[in-house]
């Protein structure tokens, strides 16, 4: 990067299915004030505001204008970003690029969603192709269901394995005061939960959450003079697939699909030989349990076909050697516009050793985060504790 970029502060709201007490601007404002407080900064010091959410999810266009009193962007430079599920990570990525370019020194990035206020199922069908897909579309479950049945058929994984992911996520969420689904569930509970679309059950899917996350990015000079524990953004990478490339659901495909390509490019940039040795914690975007198992493989945390063995052996637990989503992840909290940003912020908290009860057991110097969105888009961000890491 042209200039080094650090996360110098951040904050999130408590995430929940209902936030009847606030409007969208007030909810966004909660996260912004927490981020400013964390960075020991005033709104006057911010020179760019980037706002991200899922396009039209609340049935509101130009949310950067309507929410301006909440974001603090009045009279400042700023823009709105909408890249679907990845938007929180894209917003951080855009913020980092703005700082790295040398044009801005202190950038406020915000991601939010107030899912209860919009017709999110209807709007999500707008993600499907209007000619070929929309008449058949119905939210996101089916997508993951087809990926999951391919995974089971290819590698012999069972419903018990996805249930293990469901339990890990919600038990981790119980250690995270901000998480939405803090469920004390067992594998049997997950297996008994309502079938949505084979083999995806209710507890295999993420919830619809309301919430916001905000982060402040700064250049090296500002970060070193103003921040006690800057977390450095070391590399970012984005990759897409096309909606009708069906073989992304064939988990045995040899083709370079988005998540593998993106990880490979990022690892090459950083000189990563083995991601399991290189990174100490992973915060990944898993809207469904099965997606987590497949991402393990795509990220190179294990060989193809061995993702379900990782969860079986407990390796990705908070106390395990490859902790994945100690925060509870998207399976426990999905305020979509904030979800991918929460991955980055939660990873930053791990590096700062300020994650509280869900701080992983091992020391954390480096973290990898991912965003995921339809139709098969990922944004990955690598963080480190120092510029020497």
């Amino acid at each position: 990067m042209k200039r080094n970029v650090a996360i110098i502060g951040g904050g999130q709201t408590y995430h929940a299915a209902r936030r009847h007490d606030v409007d969208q601007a007030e909810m966004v404002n909660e996260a912004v004030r927490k981020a400013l407080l964390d960075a020991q900064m005033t709104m006057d010091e911010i020179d760019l505001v980037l706002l991200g959410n899922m396009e039209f999810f609340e049935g509101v266009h130009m949310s950067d204008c309507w929410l301006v009193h909440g974001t603090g962007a009045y009279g400042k430079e700023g823009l709105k970003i909408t890249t679907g599920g990845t938007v929180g990570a894209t917003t951080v990525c855009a913020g980092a690029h703005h700082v790295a370019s040398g044009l801005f020194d202190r950038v406020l990035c915000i991601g939010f969603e107030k899912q209860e206020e919009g017709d999110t199922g209807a709007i999500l069908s707008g993600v499907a192709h209007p000619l070929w897909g929309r008449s058949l579309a119905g939210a996101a479950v089916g997508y993951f269901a087809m990926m999951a049945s391919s995974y089971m058929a290819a590698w012999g994984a069972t419903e018990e394995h996805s249930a293990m992911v469901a339990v890990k996520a919600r038990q981790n969420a119980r250690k995270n005061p901000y998480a939405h689904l803090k469920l004390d569930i067992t594998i049997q509970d997950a297996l008994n939960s309502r079938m949505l679309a084979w083999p995806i059950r209710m507890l295999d899917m993420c919830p619809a959450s309301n919430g916001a996350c905000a982060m402040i990015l700064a250049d090296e000079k500002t970060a070193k003079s103003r921040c006690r524990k800057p977390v450095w953004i070391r590399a970012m990478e984005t990759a897409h697939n096309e909606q009708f490339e069906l073989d992304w659901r064939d988990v045995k495909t040899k083709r370079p699909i988005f998540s593998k390509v993106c990880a490979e490019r990022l690892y090459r940039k950083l000189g990563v030989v083995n991601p399991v040795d290189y990174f100490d914690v992973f915060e990944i975007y898993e809207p469904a349990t099965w997606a987590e198992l497949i991402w393990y493989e795509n990220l190179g945390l294990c060989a193809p076909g061995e993702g379900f063995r990782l969860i079986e052996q407990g390796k990705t637990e908070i106390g395990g050697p490859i902790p994945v989503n100690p925060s509870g992840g998207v399976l426990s909290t999905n305020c979509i516009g904030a979800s991918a940003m929460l991955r980055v912020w939660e990873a930053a908290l791990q590096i700062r050793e300020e994650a509280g009860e869900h701080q992983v057991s091992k020391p954390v110097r480096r973290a990898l985060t991912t965003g995921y969105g339809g139709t098969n888009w990922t944004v990955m961000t690598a963080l480190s504790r120092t510029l020497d890491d």
Partner: protein
Amino acid sequence: METKTEYQPFEVDQHLTARGNYWAGKAGSRFFVSIRDKKKLLGSPCKTCNKVFWPPRSICTFCFGELKEMVEIGPLGTVETFTVVAYAEPIHPRPAPFIYAVIRLDGADTGMAHFLDEVEIDQVRIGMRVKPVFATERKGNILDIRYFKPL
């Protein structure tokens, strides 16, 4: 210019219908309950900026301060600018012709668009004093004010 094609261009019909339900928040909730139950209009004062906002809000747009108090404003106001909508569209809230005016309520420093009615179009002028006509059955909606009319 008409483009000639060797095929018959085909159009695919698709519709998206989406509902929305919006929680009005700290200032908005108090505003809507007050208009519904008492026909009283509330604005949000910012002491730092010496401004009163209408529509109300709980954060000052200018200084980012938190606004916790609300004050009664109006109900009388002044036309700041207006237009006459002469064409009809299905999306329009009223049949044409109708008058849109930006009205600044007494005690407020900002104006908001609403309808103007019970007035001859050629009698409308900037600076005209107006008052709200409230709906008989109020639901907690900005259309609990049906329209404004001259004093």
